[in-house]
């Protein structure tokens, strides 16, 4: 489908990928401020956007410093989810036996609330970064496995047969046919997983930590410092957005041929 792109400066600006969500964000902030004024919401229940921005502006060195442990735990947990999730999915997709034993238990374990068992991780692994990594890993694991299984199972069996018929070894066929076909699904799972990994890291910090954005959150709740609490939430949301965008960029590099990566092409006369 071809689309003529207008030459006007404003609409060109509007078409830039980041502008629209930014405008929407501004709209939400304005609506938030208006609601507080209209409904006379007191500051100890919901802080005014101006106060939150003030905290972000004034305290950004400390907030940035506290973001590193959380980011580190998130990324490590996410990488573990990917590293374990994709092979597990391969096993499940490849073997009916493995699937019938493992998959139901995996679904069962997903419903166990991680926040309830997080204190146990601290007992077993201490107060360092490891329990947070485990927490992030456990939250991010399931979406990766489910999407990857879906991806591996949706490979066209005729393509596989064709490749095998051309004397492709199992490994070659896997690398050339199965894996690329499964990639789009795997990446969609990875994108969900990375945002959940942020949650997992924060849960781990709530339960046992001296540092990190989860610690800032916990501390601000105890002192009724709602602007800082909301500032911490904003940072966590931003962390999720940035990581999601990074995975998205990697996806563009790895599966540029997929239909979801196509952009509207412009035909000029």
């Amino acid at each position: 489908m071809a689309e003529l792109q207008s030459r006007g400066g404003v609409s060109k600006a509007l078409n830039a990928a980041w502008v629209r969500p930014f405008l929407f964000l501004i709209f939400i902030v304005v609506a938030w401020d208006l609601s507080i004024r209209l409904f006379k919401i007191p500051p100890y229940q919901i802080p005014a956007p101006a106060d939150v921005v003030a905290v972000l502006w004034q305290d950004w060195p400390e907030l940035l410093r506290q973001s590193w442990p959380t980011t580190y735990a998130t990324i490590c947990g996410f990488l573990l989810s990917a590293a374990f999730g994709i092979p597990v999915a391969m096993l499940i997709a490849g073997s009916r036996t493995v699937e019938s034993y493992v998959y139901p238990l995996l679904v069962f374990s997903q419903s166990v609330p991680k926040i309830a068992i997080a204190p146990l991780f601290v007992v077993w692994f201490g107060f360092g970064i490891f329990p947070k990594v485990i927490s992030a890993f456990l939250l991010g694991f399931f979406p990766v496995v489910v999407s990857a299984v879906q991806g591996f199972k949706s490979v066209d069996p005729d393509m596989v047969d064709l490749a095998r018929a051309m004397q492709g070894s199992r490994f070659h066929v896997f690398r050339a046919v199965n894996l690329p076909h499964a990639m789009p699904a795997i990446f969609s799972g990875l994108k969900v997983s990375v945002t959940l990994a942020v949650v997992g890291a924060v849960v781990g910090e709530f339960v046992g930590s001296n540092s990190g954005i989860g610690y800032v959150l916990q501390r601000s709740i105890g002192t009724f410092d709602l602007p800082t609490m909301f500032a911490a939430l904003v940072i966590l949301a931003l962390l999720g957005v940035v990581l999601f965008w990074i995975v998205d960029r990697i996806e563009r590099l790895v599966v540029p041929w997929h239909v979801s990566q196509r952009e509207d092409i412009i035909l000029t006369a």
Partner: protein
Amino acid sequence: MKRWMAALASALVLTAFAALPARAADKVVLMLNWYVYGEHAPLYYGKAKGIYAAEGIDLEIQEGRGSAATTQAVAAKTANFGYVDVPTMMRAAIKGAPVIATGVLLQTSPMSVMGLAEKNIRKPEDIKGKTVAITPADSMTQIWPLFLKKTGLKESDFTTVAGDGQTKLNAVINGQADLLLGYVMDQSMKIKDAIGKEVYPIKFADYGINMVSSGIVANTEYVKANADVVKRFMTATTKAVEAAEKDPKGAAQSILDANPKGGKIDTLTQGFELTIPLYRTTETKAKRPFQVTDQNMADSVNLMVEYGGLDAKAKENPKAFYTNEYLPKGGS
């Protein structure tokens, strides 16, 4: 025939009287500061013994998730009354939360740094070189720097690990930490339940930290609109505390009757017995519970402003945080 008619008539009259609407009791929700432990015994005892019902109050007790959260609930009118750490309530009140303490029960602080008795940590000097488990920004952690100052300790003298309430307990139970900051009657009893070992608390009050602690708080608008209910509630609670003081085991048992998983009878009783001495100071020895002195409250506010991070403008009017006017007078 006449007798039959008389019987029918009296039956009808009696039914008519029975059908008259009885004076309905006022439904009141009290939210606690935490999950139930020994300190809460008088409240459950009062409910079990009908002391609240006698004042026309139908009491529902809900467990809370920290004094901060319960204060927020009372401010938002989700709960009518809260049983919370009053200094924490002051922090919310100074930021504009419409809450006031209608009775301060613990006039001496239950805060302590405690560890297993077998570790022999009895004096502040023994804390040097040990590991202390804290929960960031909870009521004890905010006063901890003052305790360190009063006992000549520095943050660098020991290691600190942070976690939520459950993690603190696990840390001491499993040896990851030597001490935790807790209430003298709460975590000590939970550790005793878990591993059967005695816990020795170093009380903040023994080192010059004179601060009030738990009390009943209510929303200021609710108090204005329902002054009579508040009066009856405080009367009933005062009576409940007095009755529980005389029957600690019965009081502890009432917790288990309402909440069978609330703990074990021996440690709940012991926890409650540890709480009773905190009800009064030397000035209020002969008085009924809740009757806190203005001096005690002013001292607590000053301490909170100096070390608890409370806004300095709180000093201008400490009386804004509490009122004794809803308490019953004299003897029952």
